[in-house]
């Protein structure tokens, strides 16, 4: 068996369209359940929107912090780390420790906890039971 990462790219849409997407939550719950039953799902996590991103680079020993995602140009996604921190300051500090931070850019994106994913979807009108939260992680 080999592991594959499925990266999901979205465009920013207006709130009405976004709400429509949120209401599709039962489809996610269903999919995750079936992937898990088939023994294929290693993990799934929704990220907060791109506006919550912070880019971290280390140049000449100084940590440079900028608001916003890493602008895609000729660079490619090389890997990922999933870390658990008290807050953004700590996450930035850990990001700056990556050896690649001194030649690449590390984008720090907060993960949306499953409970919040559920709340956001419900606020948009999705109908899902509380237990669905177990299928969102």
């Amino acid at each position: 068996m080999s592991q594959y990462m499925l990266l999901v790219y979205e465009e920013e849409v207006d709130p009405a369209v976004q709400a429509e997407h949120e209401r599709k939550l039962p489809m996610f719950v269903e999919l995750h359940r079936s992937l898990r039953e088939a023994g294929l799902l290693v993990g799934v996590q929704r990220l907060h929107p791109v506006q919550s991103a912070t880019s971290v680079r280390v140049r000449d020993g100084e940590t440079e912090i900028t608001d916003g995602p890493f602008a895609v140009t000729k660079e490619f996604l090389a890997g990922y780390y999933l870390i658990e921190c008290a807050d953004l300051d700590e996450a930035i500090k850990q990001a700056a420790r990556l050896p690649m931070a001194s030649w690449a850019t590390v984008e720090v994106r907060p993960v949306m906890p499953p409970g919040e994913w559920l709340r956001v979807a419900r606020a948009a009108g999705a109908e899902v039971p509380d237990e669905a939260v177990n299928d969102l992680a």
Partner: protein
Amino acid sequence: MEPADAVSDAIGRAFRDERAIVLATLIRQAGDFGLAEDAVQDAFEAAVTAWRRDGVPANPGAWITTAARRRAIDRLRRDRSVADRAERLAELTRLDAQQEEPSIDDESTIVDDRLRLIFTCCHPALEMPARVALTLRALGGLTTGEIARAFLVAEPTMGKRIVRAKRKIADAHIPYRVPADEELPARTRGVLRVVYLIFNEGYAAAEGDRLVREELCDEAIRLGELLTRLMPDDAEVWGLLALMLLHDARRAARVDADGRYVALDAQDRSLWDQDRIRLGLATLERSVRLRRPGEYQLQAAITALQIQAPDSEATDWAQIAELYGALGALNQSPVIELNRAVAVGHAFGPPAGLKLLEPLLGDQAIERYQPLHAAHADLLRRAGDSEGAKRAYGRAIALTANAVEREELERRREALR
């Protein structure tokens, strides 16, 4: 019924004096920047009706605090999408049940809360315009509309920028606390940069609503004063306040009746605000006494020397040159080096100035900077090289986009004949 004027005055005062404190405390208690801001906004709106009906309360700050907390509770009850909703509600309800308002906590809690608020608003993970806007709104009490007018952007654009920043604070968990000791110096520099940017936006720009612009200068100075109360041991905090006061003292003399910029030498000194100058010098003194020279302190010291001399001739240019040297050692920049060359030219004669300036003519970072060529021309003229000066003025004229500046440079070139 209280007269409308008395109520608006009381609300205006409470807004100016208490809003930031109430907000800073409520953010800590509610654990949510955006929610607390909305609740404080609601409370001020409610005050308009309630105070008109029942009279201005004896302690307006405590009234606003209680009202804002209750609005926060209402908002939390309605909004089911908030994380940790139950815990937050429990904490706010507990505080609300306490008999007496802990007289807006004690002084040190207020200081801590406001410092937390400043560091959150000026967090480096927020884009600079958002840092400026949040600081003006949360600490300065400016409305989104006022900030938008000051920065010449449409109000909805500014509104979106603020909403986006608050969303990022919540989603990315930008902490609401004073940074740890090892991060504090860098983060404090970041805060000072935001305050100085607000000041410069009000001071330097020629266009826009002048009254709003002047308000930005006043606001930046108020923020600077607040920082000196919150961080009295930081020399740069005092240095920045001194620098802003010394610039601001000359505000009235900076532009002539036609709105044209007037250079320091040509300013009508009777228009300078002597009280502000005295305050600025005393503030600079506080900074110097902490014995940690930094960029703002050095710039303030240079400005102080220029202001205190009766004219350009009597200015202590040798000391100014030395201060620019110290500034350049902290922060290498061709503009600082240019200023040093000009000071050296005044102190030790044009050839000494030219010797420092000439290497800059080939520096890509500054070679298209008009003041470089104007200064070069001036030094050449004083060194007796009219032909060289004419060429340098020509280069400066070609680089200026400003009609008033061009006129002045052409006048100087003509005077060479």
